[in-house]
C-alpha cells in the first residue's frame, strides 16, 4: 500500500556522499556533467573498441560487476512490492478488528515479510558493495596502468615530438584525461548499469501489470526527451560561452598580473580595469544563464513525472472499474512510475559521458601511439672506454626534414680538444649538443665517436660517454645530495661530496639550512641560478664523462659565483674533449676550434685567429662589442 518504499529507488548516484571532485574538472563546478559536453572524440567507435580491448583483461571482473549490479538493482525494484504485502497484512488486521472476524493482526506474517525484505536489502547492499569494490579495483588498476604507460612513453618518444607539443598538453593527459576515463569506469558505469536496469526492470514490471497504462506512461519519455534536448542545447551554448569568457577573464588576469610592472609603468591601470569589466560583465551574463538553465532540469522533470503519476492513477481507476486490473496492481504501478522517471535524466547523460570519455581516451591512446625513437641497432658496440675523438662527416640536419639547417658540416676533433660554439642569440647553438648525444638523428652524413658511427652504439652507451651542463639548470625535487648523485646513481655519499668539492660548491652547500640534505623545490629561493648551475657541474663531475658539453653562464649570475663556475668548469674540462657554448671571450680565444653558428647552420669554423683573419661573420661579431669605442 501507498508508497512505502519509494525512496528505495534513489539511484546510487544520488548517494549523499559524492567522491572528491575530479581535479581539473569544469571550473564552474555547478552544472551537472551533461551540460559540459561540447567535447567529442574524432573517432568514437575506434576509440571505444580500443578502450574495450584495453579492458579485456578485466572482462571477468566486468561480468561479475554487471551481474551483481543487475541483481542489486532488481532487488531494490522488487523490495517495495514485497513490502507492500506487509502493509496489506496490517490493513487486513485492521479490517478484521473492525468486523470482528478473523484472528486479528498477523504479526508473524508481517514479521516474516519484513525479515524477507530486510534480507533482500542486505543482499542487495552486499551486491552493490562487492560490485563497487571490484569496479573500484579495476578502475584504479586501469588508471595506474595508463599513467605508467604514459610515463614510459615519455621516455621513449624522440625529443622531436616535444618540439611541437607543449608540456601542459602531455601533463593534462597524465592527469585529467586519465582521470576522466577512470571516473567513467568507477562511477558512471555503475550509474549507467543501474539506471538502465532500473528503467528496464521497472518497464517489465509495469508491462506485467498493464500494457495500456505502460503505454500512457511511455508518453512521458518523448516529452522528457524533448525537454532535456531543449535544455541541454540551450545551456550548452551558455555553458560554452561561460567557459570561453571565464578563459578570457582568467587570461586577462594572468596577463595583467604577470605584467603588473609594465602595466604600472605605462599607466595601463584604467585601461586594464575597463577591459576586465567588459569581460567580467559578459561572463556574468553567461554564468547565471547556464547555471539557471541547468537548474531547470530537476523541477520540470519532477513535474513531468507527477503528470504521469496522476495520468496513470486516473487510467488505473477507470480500468479497475472495468475489472481489468486490481486495486493492488494500480498501487504497485503508480509506485513504479515514480522510479521510472528518475533514471531518464541519467540515461540522457550517458551519451555525453561516453563522448567525453571517448575524447579523453582518444587523447591518451593518441599519445601512446606516437612514433617512438628509432630502434637501437641490433648489435651495438659496447666499449667500456673511449678516447673522445669526435668526427663530423658531411652532416646534414634539419628539425623538419624538409627544412635543412645544417647543410654539410665536417670537422675532426681530436681527444682533449676544446671546441667553442659561438653565435648570436637564437642561432641554434644547442643543436650541436642534441646531435652529438643523439637526441636527434641526422639526415645525412655521419657523426663518429672513436671512428664508429654513433648509431652503432646504444643510446645509453653513447650518452654514458657524455657529460652535460646546461645553462638552464635542471634539478629535481629531492635533496641536494640526490641531485648531485643524479650524475651517477651508484655513487656513494663520499663520492658526491668529493664531486661537490671539485665543483667548488661544497662550502656553499654546507652553509645551507640542511646542508646536503636540503630539499630543492620550486619555492627554493635561497639558491640562485648560478649556484644551481654549480650543482649541475658537480653532477657532471660525478658522472665522469669522456666528452663534455657545457653551456656557459651569461647574465643573471653574479660575479663571484661566475668566477667559481669558471674555475669548476676549467677543472672539469681538464683532459676531456669539450664542447662549450661560449659567451666569454677568454673561453673562445682559448678554444682549439670555434664553430660559428647563425640561423641554425654552422657558417664558419676555425681558430680565433683564423676566423678573425677571414674577416667574415665571426670577425664582425667579435668586433661589434668594441665598435662603440670607435665612435668616440
Amino acid at each position: 500500500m501507498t508508497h512505502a518504499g519509494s525512496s528505495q529507488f534513489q539511484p546510487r548516484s544520488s548517494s549523499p556522499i559524492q567522491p572528491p571532485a575530479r581535479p581539473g574538472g569544469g571550473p564552474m563546478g555547478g552544472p551537472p556533467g551533461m551540460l559540459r559536453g561540447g567535447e567529442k572524440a574524432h573517432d568514437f567507435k575506434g576509440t571505444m573498441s580500443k578502450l574495450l580491448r584495453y579492458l579485456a583483461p578485466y572482462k571477468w571482473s566486468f561480468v561479475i560487476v554487471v551481474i551483481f549490479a543487475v541483481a542489486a538493482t532488481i532487488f531494490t525494484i522488487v523490495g517495495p512490492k514485497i513490502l507492500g504485502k506487509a502493509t496489506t497484512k496490517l490493513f487486513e488486521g485492521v479490517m478484521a478488528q473492525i468486523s470482528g472476524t478473523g484472528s486479528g493482526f498477523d504479526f508473524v506474517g508481517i514479521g516474516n515479510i519484513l525479515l524477507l525484505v530486510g534480507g533482500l536489502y542486505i543482499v542487495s547492499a552486499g551486491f552493490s558493495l562487492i560490485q563497487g569494490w571490484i569496479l573500484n579495483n579495476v578502475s584504479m588498476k586501469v588508471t595506474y596502468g595508463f599513467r605508467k604507460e604514459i610515463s614510459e612513453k615519455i621516455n621513449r618518444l624522440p625529443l622531436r615530438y616535444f618540439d611541437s607539443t607543449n608540456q601542459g598538453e602531455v601533463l593534462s593527459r597524465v592527469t585529467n584525461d586519465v582521470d576522466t576515463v577512470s571516473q567513467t569506469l568507477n562511477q558512471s558505469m555503475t550509474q549507467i548499469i543501474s539506471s538502465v536496469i532500473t528503467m528496464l526492470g521497472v518497464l517489465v514490471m509495469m508491462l506485467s501489470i498493464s500494457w495500456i497504462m505502460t503505454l500512457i506512461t511511455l508518453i512521458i519519455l518523448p516529452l522528457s526527451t524533448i525537454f532535456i534536448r531543449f535544455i541541454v542545447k540551450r545551456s550548452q551554448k551558455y555553458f560554452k560561452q561561460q567557459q570561453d569568457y571565464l578563459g578570457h577573464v582568467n587570461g586577462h588576469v594572468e596577463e595583467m598580473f604577470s605584467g603588473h610592472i609594465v602595466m604600472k609603468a605605462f599607466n595601463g591601470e584604467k585601461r586594464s580595469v575597463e577591459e576586465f569589466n567588459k569581460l567580467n560583465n559578459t561572463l556574468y551574463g553567461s554564468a547565471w544563464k547556464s547555471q539557471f538553465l541547468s537548474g531547470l532540469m530537476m523541477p520540470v522533470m519532477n513535474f513531468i513525472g507527477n503528470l504521469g503519476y496522476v495520468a496513470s492513477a486516473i487510467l488505473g481507476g477507470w480500468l479497475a472499474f472495468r475489472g481489468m486490473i486490481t486495486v493492488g496492481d494500480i498501487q504497485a504501478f503508480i509506485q513504479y512510475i515514480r522510479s521510472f522517471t528518475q533514471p531518464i535524466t541519467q540515461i540522457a547523460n550517458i551519451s555525453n559521458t561516453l563522448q567525453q570519455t571517448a575524447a579523453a581516451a582518444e587523447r591518451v591512446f593518441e599519445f601512446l601511439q606516437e612514433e617512438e625513437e628509432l630502434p637501437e641497432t641490433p648489435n651495438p658496440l659496447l666499449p667500456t672506454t673511449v678516447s673522445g675523438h669526435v668526427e663530423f662527416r658531411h652532416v646534414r640536419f634539419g628539425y623538419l626534414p624538409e627544412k635543412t639547417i645544417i647543410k654539410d658540416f665536417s670537422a675532426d676533433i681530436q681527444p682533449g680538444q676544446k671546441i667553442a660554439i659561438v653565435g648570436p642569440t637564437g642561432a641554434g647553438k644547442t643543436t650541436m649538443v642534441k646531435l652529438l648525444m643523439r637526441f636527434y638523428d641526422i639526415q645525412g652524413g655521419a657523426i663518429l665517436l672513436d671512428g664508429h658511427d654513433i648509431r652503432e652504439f646504444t643510446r645509453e652507451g653513447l650518452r654514458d660517454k657524455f657529460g652535460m651542463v646546461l645553462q638552464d639548470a635542471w634539478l629535481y625535487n629531492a635533496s641536494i645530495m640526490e641531485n648531485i648523485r643524479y650524475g651517477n646513481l651508484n655513487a656513494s655519499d663520499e663520492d658526491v661530496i668529493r664531486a661537490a668539492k671539485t665543483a667548488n660548491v661544497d662550502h656553499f652547500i654546507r652553509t645551507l639550512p640542511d646542508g646536503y640534505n636540503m630539499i630543492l623545490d620550486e619555492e627554493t629561493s635561497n639558491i640562485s641560478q648560478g649556484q644551481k648551475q654549480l650543482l649541475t657541474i658537480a653532477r657532471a663531475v660525478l658522472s665522469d664523462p669522456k666528452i663534455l658539453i657545457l653551456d656557459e653562464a651569461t647574465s643573471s649570475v653574479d660575479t663571484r659565483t661566475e668566477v667559481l663556475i669558471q674555475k669548476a668548469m676549467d677543472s672539469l674540462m681538464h683532459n676531456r674533449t669539450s664542447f662549450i657554448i661560449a659567451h666569454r671571450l677568454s673561453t673562445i680565444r682559448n678554444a682549439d676550434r670555434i664553430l660559428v653558428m647563425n640561423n641554425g647552420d654552422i657558417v664558419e669554423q676555425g681558430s680565433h685567429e683564423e676566423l678573425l683573419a677571414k674577416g667574415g661573420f665571426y670577425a664582425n661579431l667579435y668586433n661589434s662589442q668594441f665598435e662603440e669605442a670607435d665612435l668616440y
Partner: protein
Amino acid sequence: MLRMFKFLKPYWISVLAVIALLFVQAMSELSLPNYMSDIVNVGIQQGGVENAVPQAVRTSQMEKLTMFMTGEERQLVLGAYTLVDQSSPDYSRLVKRYPLLESEAVYVLNDLTAEQIDTLNPVIGKALLIVSTIDNLAANPEKATAMAGQFGFDLSKLPPGTDAFSLLKSLPAEQFAAMKSAIDQKFASIDNSMITQSAAAAVRAEYVAVGGSEASLQTAYVLRIGGIMLLFTLLIAVCVILISLLSSRIAAGVARDMRREVFTKVESFSKTEFEGFSTASLITRSTNDITQIQGMIVMSLRMVFFAPMMGIGAIIRAVQNSPSMTWIIGLGVVVLLSLIVTVFSIALPKFQRVQKLIDRLNLVTRENLSGLMVIRAFNTQKFELERFDKANQDLTGNMLFIGRVMVTVSPLMTFIMSGLQLLIIWVGGHLVANSVIQVGDMMAFLQYAMHVVFSFLMISLMFIILPRAFVSLRRVSEVLEVEPAIKDPEHPKTFDERLRGQVEFRNVSFRYPGAEENVLCNISFTARPGETTAIIGSTGSGKSTVVNLIPRFFDVTEGSVLVDGRDVREVSQSDLRDRIGYIPQRGMLFSGTVESNLRYADENATPEELQKAVEIAQASEFIAGMEGGMSAPISQGGTNVSGGQKQRLAIARALVKKPPIYIFDDALSALDFKTDAALRRALKKETENSTMIIVTQRVSTIRNAEQIIVIDEGQIVGKGTHNELMDTCETYREMVSSQLSREELIS
C-alpha cells in the same frame, strides 16, 4: 570575513525572496506525500469515497440508518440532508446526477463545511457499517451464526425471506438498546478513518443505488486530488525555477562584483603588496577561488536554508502525526551521523592527501618533461620511471582507499535508510494494532522520517563542504584587506616643466616591509638629461631596487627621490610614470599584435613613430620577417617570439612613449653583444636630451657612460666614469676583470 557579507548586500531582496520561496517549496514538498497517498488510499482503494457521508441516500436506506442512531444523531443527520422529489426546485439539476429521482424521492446532502462532515462521519459511517453488515449477514446466513455472540442476536435464526430490519424494528426496546450498546462498544475503539475505509463500499453502493456512476465518482476524486497535487508540483517547480533563477543571478553577481573588486584592488597594488603574494597565488585568488565561492553561494542558497526548513518541518509533522514513534527518527539520525562521522574521521586524512599526491604526480611528470635532455644525457630514465611509479602508486593507493570507503558507505547508507523503514513498519504495525495510530499515519510518518534523515544528511554534508569554501573566501578577503602602501597624494603637485628628466636620489635608504635590514643604504646621486647613468653590481646587490624607486614601484624608507625637483611622492603616480620609459628585466609583452604592444605606450602614435622606434630597437628586421609584420600576432606573455626579440619590442615600446627619462632595468643582458652595441648606438642618437638610466652587470654595455654607479650590498661603492673607477674602485675592477680579458682592457 564579515566584510564578505557586504557583497551580498546589493542582492538582499533577492536573498529574502529565495528564502521565502524555499519556505514555500519546503511546505509544498511536505504536503505532497499526503496527496499522493490520498490518490492511492482514497482514490484507488476506496473508489474515490473520501468519507462515510453519502452524497445521496434512498429514503428506504435512510430509514434503516436512522434506526441505529440516537434521537440527537437522527436529528443531526436528517438536518444535513434535503429530501428531493420531482417538485423540488433543484430537481432538474439533480436528476442528472441521481437518475433514481425519476421514480422516487432521495435524500441529497446539503452543502456542508468540512467540520460538519467530520461530525457526521462517525455517525453515518457507523450506521452504514451496521446496516451493510446486517445486509451482508442476511445474505450469508452461515456467517451470521459466527457473529451472533457479538450482536447478541442471531440473524440466521430468522426465517428466510423475512426482512431483518422490520424484525429489528419490532424488537422490544430493551433488547434493541442492549444490542445497540453492544455495537457501540465495539465501535468505540475504531477511529474515523477506519470507519470511512470500511464504510467506503457501502457509500459506493449507495451512490450506485441512487443511479450514480461508480467510475465517475472515482475519476472525479482522482482528478481533483491529482489536480491539487499537480498544482503543488507546479508550485514547487515554479519555486525551484525562481530560486534557481535568483540564486544563479545572485551567485554570478556576487562573483562578478568580487572579481571586479579583487582585480581592481590588485591592479592598484604597488610592487610591495604584489610581492607579498606570489603572482600565481594572486591569479588563483582572483579566478579559481572566486569561482569556488560562486559555486558555494548557489549551494548554500539552496541547501543552507532548505535542509533545516525541511528537517524542522518534517519533524513537526512527524511528531504531530505519531509522537510515539519519534524515537525512531532520533535513532536513524544518530546511526547515520555516527556512520558519517566514523567514515570521515577515517577518510578525511586520505581526502586531504589527494591533492598533494596529485600535485606530486604532476611535479614528477613536469620534471620529466622539462628535464628530457638531462634525463637522457645521464641515462636515468629507469630512475625516473621508478620515481613516477612511486608517485603513481601512492596516488593510486590513496584513491583506492577512498574509493573503497565510498563504495562501502553508499550501500550501507541505503541499507540504514531501508532498515529504518522496516523498523517503522514493525513498530508502527504494533501501534496500529493497539489502535494508537492508524495505517495512514504510519505511512505519512515513514515519509517524514525519510525527510528528516535526509535533511540531517544534507546538514552534516554542509559542515564538511562549507569549510573548504571558506578557505577560498578567506584567501579572497586577504587580498581585499590589503591597503596599498603607495597612494597618490591628496593634492598632487605638477612638474616643473623647465627641468626635463633630472632624477636625484637624496640619502635614500630602503627596506622591504617587515625585513630586518636595509636593501639600500644612503644612496645619493643625480642622473642628468642628456647623460647616461649606469648602475652596475652583482646579483642581489640592490641595483634593480634603485631604479624601481623612480617610478614609485616602491616608496623609499628614508630620504627622497626627486624627479625634476619634485619628490615623487608629491605628484600623482600617473603624472610621474608619464615621464618615464621603463624597460623591465624580462621583456613582458601582452597578447595582441606587435603594433598593439607598441601602442600600449601611446595609443595615438603615428605609424612613422612606431616604425622609427622599431628601427632604433633593432627590431625592424625580425618584425618584417614575421607573418603580418607589424600586425603579426603576439601570444600571451609573448611566447611566440624569442627572449631577445621580446626584449627589443619592450625597448621599442618604451621609445614610442618618448619620455624624458629612460630606465633600462637590466634589459640589455638578453641581447647578444652585437645587437646590444647596435642598439645602444642608435639609441644614443635618438635620445640625446633624455636621461638614460641603465642597470646592468655587463661592463661592455656601459663602458662609455657619463656616470657609472657601482652598487655592492646596497651601498654605493664607486661613482665616476669607467676610467676613474678603474683607478679608484676595487669592486668595479674585479667585475671588469672577470668579464673582459686583459688584452681588451689594454686595447
